[in-house]
């Protein structure tokens, strides 16, 4: 949704300033090596928009996602959620904020307890809120399942009985139970077949227009990122090397990395001369 212009005067949902995440490795010789996986990243995401972060594996995208979802503590820099600096909060307050930022992972198969059925998976976050009785939870779960395109009849199914696309829908439904403001999708479409990706991408678009969801879409699939995003940030080795609207990135890529990524997108047309001819 191109609402970014009108929303610029609104507060960004999340504002990251100079985020650094490093891991220390002690080698056998006793030398301490510091690996900066995220090396000074800054950006803002405004409500109802999608920021796509693209890059190769090892560029630090997933670590960035973990830091924003408060699953990892940043080494330095600040993360402001709706103006509040998360790093300065006490654990209890941080937990409340954490609910507002939900993370969807790549692997639909491993995101769920394989022994729980759909209803139980949906009920777990609802139960955490603590103020609903069983029937209310069930109704709410059905409503959310309906929103993501899963029929309430599926409540008794196990994750193994669902398709990859259905599992990802379930992951999104589960994330929605806590009414998050920001949804971080870490390669959430990458493990799906092409036709499934389209379905889930459409669902995301719909949720954005109906609920005003804000997305951080992390992927190495540039084509899908361009399709979904209002802004794109290209990440390499922990840094953002280029940042701009999809149009600008496509038409005037400034960085070598961006150009490489663009070149690596497989196209359906026949530009290569090595096609065997009769």
């Amino acid at each position, binding site marked *: 949704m191109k609402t970014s212009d009108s929303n610029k005067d609104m507060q960004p949902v999340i504002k990251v300033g100079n985020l650094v995440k490093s891991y220390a490795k002690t080698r056998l010789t006793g030398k301490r090596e510091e690996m900066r996986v995220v090396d000074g990243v800054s950006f803002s995401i405004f409500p109802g928009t999608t920021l796509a972060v693209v890059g190769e594996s090892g560029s630090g995208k997933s670590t960035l996602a973990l830091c924003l979802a408060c699953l990892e503590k940043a080494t330095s820099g600040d993360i402001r959620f709706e103006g509040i600096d998360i790093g300065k909060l006490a654990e209890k307050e941080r937990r409340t904020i954490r609910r507002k930022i939900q993370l969807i992972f790549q692997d639909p198969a491993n995101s769920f307890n394989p022994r729980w059925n759909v209803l139980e998976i949906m009920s777990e976050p609802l139960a955490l809120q603590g103020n609903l009785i069983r029937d209310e939870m069930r109704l709410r779960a059905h409503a959310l399942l309906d929103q993501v395109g899963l029929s309430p009849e599926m409540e008794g199914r196990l994750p193994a009985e669902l*398709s990859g696309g*259905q599992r990802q829908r379930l992951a999104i439904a589960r994330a929605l139970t806590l009414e998050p403001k920001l949804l971080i999708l870490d390669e959430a479409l990458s493990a799906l077949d092409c036709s499934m990706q389209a*379905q889930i991408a459409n669902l995301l678009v719909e949720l954005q227009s109906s609920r005003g969801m804000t997305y951080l879409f992390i992927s190495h699939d540039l*084509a899908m990122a361009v399709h979904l995003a209002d802004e794109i940030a290209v990440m390499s080795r922990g840094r953002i090397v280029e940042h701009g609207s999809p149009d600008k990135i496509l038409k005037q890529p400034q960085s070598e990395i961006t150009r*490489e990524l663009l070149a690596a997108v*497989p196209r*359906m047309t026949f530009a290569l001369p090595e096609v065997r001819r*009769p």
Partner: protein
Amino acid sequence: MSASLSCFNMACMGSILEVRDLRVAYGLGGGDTHQALDGISFCLESGEVLGILGESGSGKSTLATSILGLFRGNAVVASGAVLFEGRDLLQANPDELQRIRGKHISLIFQEPSMALHPTMQVGQQVRQVLAAHGMNGGVALNQKTREVLETVFTENTERIARSYPHQLSGGQRQRVLIAQAIACGPCLVIADEPTASLDPTTQMEMLGVFRALRRSLGLAMIFITHNPALLAGFSDRVLVLYAGRVVELGLTEEVLSWPKHPYTRSLFQSIPVLPGEPRDASQKKLPSIPGDSRPSSLPEAGCPFEPRCSERMDTCKSQEPGLVNLSETHVVSCFRYEKS
């Protein structure tokens, strides 16, 4: 290349592989079976690259393993024939199969992280393949192993040979799988989603490796993928697989540029394309195919794609379409193209 016909009416002359009406089912326990492959037929010429386009549930991995007779334990019922250099592999005894596997026909598995032995050095794993096919003697074996590794790894070959799979990157592991596949100089390599878990730049690299190998070794390949864009400029022909059946088969240009089967068409439409190419990408909603292709979602009778098809007709519900020759090279399985 003489465009060989899919072999429904005539025998394939000069082809190295001919799959005839292959049907493979898996037992699901409790008496139920799932038909993974439901009558697959095609031919492959020497040196040709056939791309098999299939999503999950289409039976593509079953096709890959069935050609080599690698069946899992759970009650597999197979019929049809897989003719390789005159012999039917489905009827071959275990010794014959073992001789052919890895030496004449190789299989590159999905998921390189799972297809390699976790606690064996990768050099050893390549060596084992060579040793299994008659190469014996320490020095000659080591020498040949080194040579094979050098065709896929241009530098650091020694260090990589002594590494374990978990110490290598995804792209490196994929190269090891390729090395294992070409070690004994096969004439046919079947690659099952060889680029699925890699990021785009590595994907392109890998395709380059395959192209180079094809040029230098004259390999025939069956390249299985769910991403049609990878086949552009790479394969000679494309076979589209849905629910264990061939729904479309033709030259790559034909199938990718002018797809005829409703599934193929909807599939291509649902893939986001970078703007600047001939499609209106200003709309946020991608035309997607509703539903899914899991076994439980398939209809009991009629065309398997019917429930999800935007162009379905009444006959599609009750009867299964046969194959229609659209041209000398292009066939499709859809009632829309059948002339009464």
